[in-house]
C-alpha cells in the first residue's frame, strides 16, 4: 500500500510564527504536491515538485515556500503564519505520466 504520511494531524500556531509541515512518501514517487482545502473553495495547489530540489508554483504560492532535499520528503513552510492561512493542508504524491495521486491524512492548521 502506498503511504503518504504527514507529520501532524492538528497544529495550532501563533500569528508571525514560522511553520513547517512535513510529508513523507514511501513509494519512490517523482512528484509531490501540497494543497490547501477550504470550504467552498475546494482543493487548491500551493506548490509541487517533480524531482529533488525542483519545485513549481501552483495557484496560490504567496506566503509559502517548499523544500525537497530528498526524494521521499516534501516540506511546506509558512514563513510568517497569518490567520488567513488557517486551513486543511494536504500532501500528495504520484509517479510519472499522470498516474493517480495518493494523499496523506491532512494537517488541520489553526493560526491564532
Amino acid at each position: 500500500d502506498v503511504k503518504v504520511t504527514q507529520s501532524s494531524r492538528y497544529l495550532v500556531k501563533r500569528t508571525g510564527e514560522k511553520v513547517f509541515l512535513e510529508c513523507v512518501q514511501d513509494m519512490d514517487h517523482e512528484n509531490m504536491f501540497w494543497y490547501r482545502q477550504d470550504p467552498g473553495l475546494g482543493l487548491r495547489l500551493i506548490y509541487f515538485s517533480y524531482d529533488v530540489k525542483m519545485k513549481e508554483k501552483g495557484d496560490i504560492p504567496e506566503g509559502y515556500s517548499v523544500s525537497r532535499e530528498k526524494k521521499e520528503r516534501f516540506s511546506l513552510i509558512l514563513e510568517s503564519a497569518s490567520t488567513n492561512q488557517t486551513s486543511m493542508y494536504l500532501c500528495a504524491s504520484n509517479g510519472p505520466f499522470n498516474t493517480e495521486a495518493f494523499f496523506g491524512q491532512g494537517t488541520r492548521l489553526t493560526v491564532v
Partner: protein
Amino acid sequence: EDQVTQSPEALRLQEGESSSLNCSYTVSGLRGLFWYRQDPGKGPEFLFTLYSAGEEKEKERLKATLTKKESFLHITAPKPEDSATYLCAGGGYGQNFVFGPGTRLSVLP
C-alpha cells in the same frame, strides 16, 4: 482555462436508492480522470482512474464511466457507510491535477 465541475453539490439518498454523480471537465489534453472519496477531516482516498472515453471501472457498489466531456460515478444500492464527499479530478499537461468542488453524499438508513 482547465476546469472541472461536479453536480449535484449535495445528494441525500435512502439506503438502497441508486443514483449517479456527475463530473464535467474541460481539461486540455486530458491524460486521466480520477475519482476520490473523502471522509470528514481526512485526506482523499483514491477510487478510480479512467483514461479513455468508453472506459468503465467498478468497485463494490461504485462504477465510474467516462465520455469525452463527462464522467459519472454510479452508486448502486448505497449503504450509510458510502456517505462521504466524492471528488473528481482531471490530469492534464504537466503533472498537475484540476479538482472539482466535490459532491457531498449522505445515505440515510
